[in-house]
């Protein structure tokens, strides 16, 4: 009896997490997978095993174009957030002297997160619009005659909003990573005659790679799954994979959306696996 309890204890201890992950992660994905093989028409969906959801998704040039567009957003937003994130984290970790000031400035970086994504996104509209702050400012200053049309409801607006929303996801892991770099390494490099840019290139950047990789995973997965930013900021003129799924769902084409979701999931997982192959992030976890 006693022996049985001893043996069961570890399993009992693991049960809450298992239940949580099973219920909120494994079961939904399993359902998604099952539904993606079902049949559907305008009125409902029917249990079956058909593959035309996938055939339709993968065979359509619209899908490929949308994936291309989403990947383009992911690449541009990644490049900008990685650049900004690296320098913000570098400044915080290596140039702010006191720990108190470091924490204060880091908290300042997180302040935008006290409001919701949607609010932060929508607040760009009065800034970028035809008669928005930027345009009226530029026209008023006599720099341009006509308001700039491409500021809002364009790819530029989508990327700007995404950078705004996701830069912190890059800053945090890189900052965390940089704080663990032994400051005496910087001194050792300086002792060896390294200039500031040489220290950054030869010491800090290679050692910050795990942080950059984690930030990359965050940003890429967020951008790949984004539909609200693309919809609001492009004014419906640009497409993303998630937006395509949402449209399918609003037409009650759940199995088609599910197939699309499975394809996206596989693609994102492959991207994450690729990142993990290049950079060993275990040191950071």
């Amino acid at each position: 009896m006693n022996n049985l309890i001893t043996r069961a204890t570890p399993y009992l201890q693991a049960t809450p997490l298992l239940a949580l992950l099973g219920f909120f992660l494994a079961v939904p994905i399993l359902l998604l997978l099952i539904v993606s093989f079902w049949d559907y028409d305008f009125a409902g969906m029917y249990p079956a095993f058909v593959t035309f959801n996938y055939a339709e998704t993968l065979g359509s040039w619209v899908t490929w174009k949308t994936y291309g567009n989403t990947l383009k957003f992911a690449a541009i937003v990644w490049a900008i957030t990685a650049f900004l994130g690296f320098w913000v984290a570098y400044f915080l970790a290596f140039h702010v002297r006191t720990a108190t000031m470091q924490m204060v400035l880091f908290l300042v970086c997180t302040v935008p997160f006290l409001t919701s994504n949607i609010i932060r996104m929508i607040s760009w509209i009065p800034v970028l619009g035809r008669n928005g702050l930027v345009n009226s400012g530029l026209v008023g200053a006599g720099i341009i005659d006509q308001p700039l049309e491409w500021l809002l409801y364009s790819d530029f607006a989508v990327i700007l909003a995404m950078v705004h929303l996701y830069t912190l996801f890059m800053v945090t892991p890189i900052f965390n990573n940089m704080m663990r770099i032994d400051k005496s390494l910087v001194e050792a490099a300086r002792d060896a005659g390294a200039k500031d840019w040489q220290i950054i290139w030869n010491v800090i950047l290679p050692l910050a790679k795990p942080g950059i990789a984690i930030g990359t995973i965050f940003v890429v997965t967020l951008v790949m799954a984004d539909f609200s930013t693309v919809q609001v900021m492009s004014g419906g003129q640009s497409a993303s994979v998630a937006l395509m799924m949402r449209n399918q769902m609003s037409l009650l084409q759940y199995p088609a959306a599910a197939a699309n979701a499975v394809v996206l999931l596989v693609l994102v997982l492959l991207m994450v696996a690729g990142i993990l192959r290049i950079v060993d992030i275990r040191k950071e976890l």
Partner: protein
Amino acid sequence: MSKAAEIDIASVSKIYGKTIAVDSISIKIPAGSYCCLLGPSGCGKTPTLRMIAGHESVSNGDIVLGKEVVTNLPPAKRGTAMMFQSYALFPHLDLIDNVAFSLKMAGVDKETRRAKALDMLKLMQLDGYANRRPAQLSGGQQQRVALARALITDPEALLLDEPLSALDPFLKIRMRAELKKLHKQLGITFVHVTHSQEEAMALADMVVVMSDGRIEQAASPREVFERPATAFVARFMGDHNVISGKVVGSAENIVTFDVVGGGTFTASGEPRPVGADVDAAIRTDHVRIGESPNKGFGFTGIVTNLEYRGPSVKLTIEGAGISEFTAIVTDKAFYATPVAVGDAVPLHWDAEDAIILGAP
């Protein structure tokens, strides 16, 4: 092999806000010597070393290396190389690239710098590990890599910040010998920061004992040990009893003083005014059991602790006005007239073993 530089530190201070870490110190470290900066933590020895290296700005005063004033030069322009306490090896680079780092920064091409680094690793007997990362090495090996990396710049002075503190006791003694050998081989100036008096005595030609940002004594290890300048040095170097009292009389090179609530003692030293506070040091291993033949060179106290140490026995004695007096007697002498804890025991020493500490 190379040119050693004299290091001249002229009334240098380091002030952090309101804290004075180094208080206007001056020392000349002769070219090619092995100098140990010795002191407890917070005494200012590390800031001093870092100022010589250029990793800490000098608040006041000047540092001259060889013939050049280096006070405001960047670290790499000074002709010094520093070995950091935790070695600060680059974890993402293999040994060759670690050692070749400064050459890479200087723009030396890949073939040349890798060949030179490999030569340096050979000198340190690490060429078999050239492609490993620092984390795959033992502490002693990491230290040798750090040395190789510091020496590849062909410095005039090598600065070592507690180089042995991360090693286990056995390795410490081995690396100590290696450092000494290396110093002899290279002939450059070594400045070594440590808090271990044993390490300093074993290695240094010149020991600089520091306390509270000031230099207490700078001399050869033998002089620091045999003639400690101050009560601080005597206590810090260990193996000395320090007894304090008030002067009652002075003759030429002889000072007689009363311990408050205790006896009268005599020690050699410069004459002092009557009534002045005075400290005297007595070597623990020169104290013997037995009545003193001369007055003023002994007392009788109660044994409070006994420690058997093999070749010697350590007695802790409580006397009138004197607490924690240590006597280390040979096992032979002890077992000739054994005493137990609680016994009263007479102690004495020779006239030349009691010296007055501090300047008059």
